[in-house]
């Protein structure tokens, strides 16, 4: 039986980052993935690297990760672009949220500033008239997530990581996994299988939350920043069965990526035109010029949502050599790099750079 210091299961962006980080620390790593690298939620994602501030634990992990992303800024494959995030206020009520949001970001050390209506239209002339203003986070960026995942895996492979193109079917009572082809690997296991987590670790609840995205043909110069409505958090953190929010992103290609929708209970990947309709109508309210642009593709993906919205990062309760990094919901691209560093630090018995306690899987008592 082959033996490793760490067996990473799943090569989404989280597993890829874990393999990268562990191999960099000198561990002998195995990476297990049956599908394309970054072919799960990672392939569906918008790739917005954003300091989400609605929850202190989420913001801490995002902030930590955004720092680590700096190292990717000059990597051509990552398609990294620091376009900044422009949060727009649709109403006076929205605008009233700005000071508190600024304070939270400031406390976490994220530079941001309020933007009045005049500047808003200078930054994004395509926004609908009559908006109240907004908030700009200049350092936020966008990447092409599956390409980043591939880059991380390639780097890990160059350091000697063994790649198994197979799925893990079972985690052993001792340390190790059994693969679909019945071969077995021994060593500590780190499960990073995203939405599929409960198949291997049924004690850690996860719900898939479906999302739709649309991408246009190339229309360079139409949108300049990632633009979201300030009410985005209501959609992201609400418990409604389905919700939509205005969220557009300029790709380096000149294409425009348009989101977003969130749905519990939808389990098949088909594009739902009724959902697309709601999502687009929301987007047109903020940016009417979008109406006349050609969409090339629509797609869907599933966000892995944990019991309390925070990822599970750390040792699985009651298991000596089983670790987990999964459940990043709609922020797993942003938080992948920090999550990997944090978990690998715990595996190595090092003290992580941020407090790991809010993400400890032991918090979900089962």
């Amino acid at each position, binding site marked *: 039986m082959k033996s490793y210091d760490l067996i990473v299961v799943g090569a989404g962006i989280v597993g890829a980052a874990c393999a990268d980080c562990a191999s960099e620390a000198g561990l002998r790593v195995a990476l297990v993935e049956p*599908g*394309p690298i*970054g*072919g799960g939620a990672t*392939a569906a994602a918008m790739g917005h690297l954003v300091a989400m501030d609605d929850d202190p634990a989420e913001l801490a992990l995002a902030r930590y990760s955004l720092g680590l992303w700096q190292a990717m800024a000059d990597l051509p494959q990552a398609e990294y672009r620091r376009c900044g995030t422009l949060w727009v206020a649709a109403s006076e009520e929205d605008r009233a949220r700005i000071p508190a949001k600024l304070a939270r970001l400031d406390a976490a050390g994220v530079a941001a500033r309020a933007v009045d209506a005049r500047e808003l239209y200078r930054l994004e002339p395509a926004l609908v008239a009559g908006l109240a203003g907004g908030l700009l986070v200049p350092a936020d960026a966008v990447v092409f997530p*599956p*390409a980043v995942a*591939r880059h991380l895996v390639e780097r890990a492979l160059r350091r000697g990581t063994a790649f198994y193109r197979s799925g893990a079917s079972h985690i052993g009572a001792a340390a190790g996994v059994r693969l679909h082809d019945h071969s077995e690997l021994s060593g500590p296991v780190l499960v990073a299988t995203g939405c599929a987590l409960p198949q291997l670790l049924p004690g850690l609840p996860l719900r898939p939350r479906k999302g739709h995205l*649309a991408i*246009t*043909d190339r229309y360079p110069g139409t949108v300049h920043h990632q633009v979201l409505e300030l009410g985005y958090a209501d959609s992201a953190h609400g418990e409604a069965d389905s919700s939509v929010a205005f969220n557009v992103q300029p790709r380096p290609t000149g294409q425009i990526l*348009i989101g977003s929708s969130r749905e519990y209970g939808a389990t098949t990947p*088909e*594009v739902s*035109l009724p959902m*697309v*309709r709601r999502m*687009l*109508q929301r*987007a*047109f309210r903020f940016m009417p010029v*979008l*109406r*006349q*642009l*050609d*969409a*090339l*593709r*629509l*797609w869907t993906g599933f966000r892995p949502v944990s019991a309390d919205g925070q990822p599970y990062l750390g040792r699985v309760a009651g298991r000596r050599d089983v670790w987990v990094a999964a459940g990043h919901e709609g922020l797993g691209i942003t938080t992948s790099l920090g999550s990997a560093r944090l978990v690998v630090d715990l595996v190595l018995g090092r003290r992580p750079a941020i407090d790991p306690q809010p993400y400890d899987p032991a918090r979900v008592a089962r």
Partner: protein
Amino acid sequence: MRDGYDVLVVGAGPAGLAAAAAAAGHGARVGLIDAQAGAGGQVWRREVARTGPALARRGIAAALGHPGVAWLPQTQVVGAEAGALLVEDPQGGRWLGYRALVLAAGARELLLPFPGWTLPGVTGAGGLQALAKQGWPLRGCRVVIAGSGPLLLAAAVTARRHGAELLGVYEQAGGEHLRRFARGLWRWPGKAAQAAWMRARLAGVPYRCGSVVRRASGEARVQAVEVDGPHGLQRIACDLLAVGYGLLPNVELARLLGCALRQSGAHPCVDTDSRQRTSVEGIYAAGELCGIGGRDSARLEGAIAGHAAAGDDAGAARLQRPRRHARRFAERLDRHFALDPRVRALAEADTVICRCEDVPLSALDGHADARSARLATRCGMGACQGRICGGALAELGRFPRDGSRPPLFPARLSTLAADPVSFRDP
């Protein structure tokens, strides 16, 4: 309110026109839609300032002239839900409801990559014909036509009529195959007459078998081609190269609707029974969509589908014999114009395969399916949605194009947001 039809027909080529006329003949309220501005499909595409052949005029008039047929040109199907299609026309997007649906979306050319195929001045063979019919200037232009199948001759005739100087027609199939094909042609007198007529129009134009265009070259556009024939390599200076390797069915909408497909060579086509019923209740398919067969089988299958969709089984039954006869012709075509393996080996490592995203062949090595290639290389991510590279990669034996989803063609975002309100009763 959205418009509802008893029978909705997608595609106004010979198949769709026949379906619309047959269904309307039974009193059905028919909607006939096509993305093109004019009816006729590929073979009966209207020419600028020229009347079409009598058969085409009759076929078009029988459908468009029928009071029960609503003709909706420049209307492209981009999505579907149970009982309704999402379409886009120059005014915008809307939903069209139906009780029965006839799919007659025809075929596109199989365009295979070779060095230089992205140069301006390189078109499909049927592509050149279509462009010429829409007024593309060819007078005095030196044209090489290449690829495979009878479409090369049809394209050559059109090009010559528009004043092109034809330097030659280069067919990849070997001479022996073609002679055997020609010897069997007497069983289809219409085809034989058509072939004789085309040959007469092409008097003096070299027609070479067993010949493949290996390369096109030029500065900003094509200036010369290299032909690999039985007598070795030949370089020909020209202004235009039209090259097509036959046709492949436009199955995207059928696939989105869940109709069962079957494989015909490297490409899927829609599976139907003898009444042109697909595997989905109330949905029929006819013409090239059910396997490349040409104009005659398209017309017959269209009529069968139209009768069946309007509930007239006797009408559908009457046309079975001629349909089988017409389909046998298609089988012969397939056999005698089968592609020489040379043709699949023309692309070199740096030859662009995905023209929308400029992805070279070498970038696709190691990818076993379309999705993994797309994620890693952007191959198939562009505006044609993989229609060109997907067909080529399937033919090259790499991987098939993957499933359909809306929008079936790039569509305005406002179209995708169009509200499906309740039906207007037909």
